[in-house]
């Protein structure tokens, strides 16, 4: 073996070793803002999971003495963020509200992106007329603002709650994400479809399903992950907006959007804390997912256009 050969091998090893060094530490060093996002997200998730232990009160406990309607409710030691019109502790409701926001956010972003990814890759894989038809349909769906699309879905699907989760709200939020994901994933999959191993798989006689799920989908994981993080933030915002309009989750489920709606707006002047804190919660949640999503994109695939 010549010296030259050895050097070459070393270089190859270096190249191979590079990706494995992209660890969490690496991410924290390169993306400080994204790391801040992760810390905030994990804090919210822990608060949501251990809500019973973290929240000082039961979110549905009514205590009229603490209500602003009777002159109480201002932030105090007992109620650090104040109490609402029914004297319910706002901090506790925010902590339980994180459950609603995060579960709906995760589920709808996951389902929306997954279905979108499957449609996108299939569209790229089959090409031709199927692709054209799917793309025209996606164009059509993209011509509506996401909240308008979500409200139309709410109008079409009856209210249904399974295991305390509003299924129709999740569906309504997930559907607007499908065309967006399908569009981005398709453009990524188009490059994968032309690769030799896809031809090889075809020659081996594998079914279309197998090629799509085993050979193409794993290769669009990066944009898929980026889209999911970006959409969780949007889903939380959408859930808050829908609940605010009275079309999302309903009382007594603690939801950040719901805390801003209805009678609560009678207290603009007397109890501003009822308005300020829930909105702040939504903003921080969306902000952290946006920061994390942006950094994840810079880290995994800086050229991806969303």
């Amino acid at each position, binding site marked *: 073996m010549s010296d030259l050969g050895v050097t070459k091998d070393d270089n190859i090893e270096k190249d191979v070793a590079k990706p494995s060094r992209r660890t969490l530490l690496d991410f924290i060093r390169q993306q400080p803002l994204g790391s801040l996002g992760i810390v905030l997200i994990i804090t919210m998730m822990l608060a949501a999971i251990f809500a019973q232990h973290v929240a000082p009160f039961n979110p549905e406990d009514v205590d009229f003495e603490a209500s602003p309607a009777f002159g109480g409710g201002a932030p105090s030691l007992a109620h650090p963020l104040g109490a609402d019109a029914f004297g319910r502790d706002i901090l506790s409701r925010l902590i339980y509200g994180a459950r609603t926001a995060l579960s709906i956010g995760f589920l709808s972003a996951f389902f929306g992106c997954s279905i979108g990814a499957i449609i996108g890759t299939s569209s790229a894989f089959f090409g031709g007329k199927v692709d054209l038809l799917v793309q*025209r349909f996606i*164009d*059509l769906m993209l*011509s*509506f*603002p*996401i*909240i*308008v699309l979500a*409200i*139309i879905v*709410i*109008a*079409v699907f*009856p209210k249904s709650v399974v295991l305390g989760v509003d299924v129709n709200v999740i569906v309504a939020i997930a559907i607007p994400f499908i065309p967006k994901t399908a569009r981005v994933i398709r453009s990524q999959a188009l490059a994968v479809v032309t690769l030799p191993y896809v031809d090889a798989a075809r020659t081996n006689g594998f079914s279309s399903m197998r090629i799509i799920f085993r050979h193409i989908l794993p290769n669009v994981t990066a944009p898929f992950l980026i889209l999911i993080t970006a959409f969780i*933030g949007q889903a939380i*915002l959408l859930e*808050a*907006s829908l609940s*605010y*309009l*009275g*079309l999302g989750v309903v009382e007594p489920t603690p939801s950040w*959007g719901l805390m*801003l709606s209805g009678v609560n*707006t009678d207290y*603009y*002047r007397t109890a*501003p804390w009822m*308005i*300020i804190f*829930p*909105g702040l919660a*939504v*903003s*921080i949640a*969306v*902000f952290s997912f*946006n*920061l994390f999503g942006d950094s994840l994109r810079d880290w995994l695939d800086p050229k991806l256009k969303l």
Partner: protein
Amino acid sequence: MLAYTIRRILLVIPTLLAVAVLVFFVLRVVPGDIVEIKLAAEGGIISAEEIQKEKERLGLDDPIMVQFYKYMIGLPRGDLGISLWTENNVSEEIMSRIGLSFELAILSTILAVLIAFPLGTISALYRGSILDYVIRIITIGGIAVPSFWFGMLLIMLILATFGNLPPLGTISIFDDPKTNLYQMIWPALSVGYRYSSVVARMLRSSILEVLSEDYIRTARAKGVFERIVIVKHGMRNALLPTVTVIGLEFAFLLGGLVVTESVFNLNGIGKLFVDSVVRNDLNLLQGLVLTVATGFVLVNLIIDLLYAALDPRIRYQK
């Protein structure tokens, strides 16, 4: 340019037709029955006979294809049927409220552009400075903050400063422009914050992208003044993607209006849209969806034509 324009305009028709057909059938799946909801709201016990009679009167007992036929032949004449709730003409209901929403949309666009251009340009030209960081935090905030909450904070601010909140949007811009603008500026700001953030971010990244191009280096190398490099060579090219974003966001403005009109209690089409869903008023909902889609398609058409006028390369593409 003429051929391009004609081709582009002709493309509008099939799109709108597809939306019209799709909307009709998707909304017929709605399970809630408007007649029952409406009669129940009036109180008392309702018999099956009464429901049937009301359905006949509203034409809801026709076979679905007959309803579809009536709907499709009404469309070219602008006849969208009657609202099942108020029994007014749907087109009239929409027309009477669209002016307010349109004014709000225009105002927020103007505000957004006025805010976004200086912010985006400064942020790009002083990249990495403290000023850039401050602007970026403001613009990221604009995307994260729910516009209805921002509107509520504005209302709180108005209440704290002036002591009362005037009924907004009741004075027409044609009767008393000053009062009207003074009142409409708040909801416009509430929608415009997000809008300006999106535009400013786009402008920042496209200026940065353009400034790293070879022709900018060439211009600098041949000794062109920096101000002229930026304005003539940089900004002009950075404007193209920004114009698209402004247009697209304008088309999507209804999304922001839906919540903002509810916050400020404005009687525009955004609020009408929410009301129509709450009341299960299919005809009205259908009319509104069509209006939104038409608006979007038209704005897109204008962007495309504007784009073709600004950038000759597009005209010659297939």
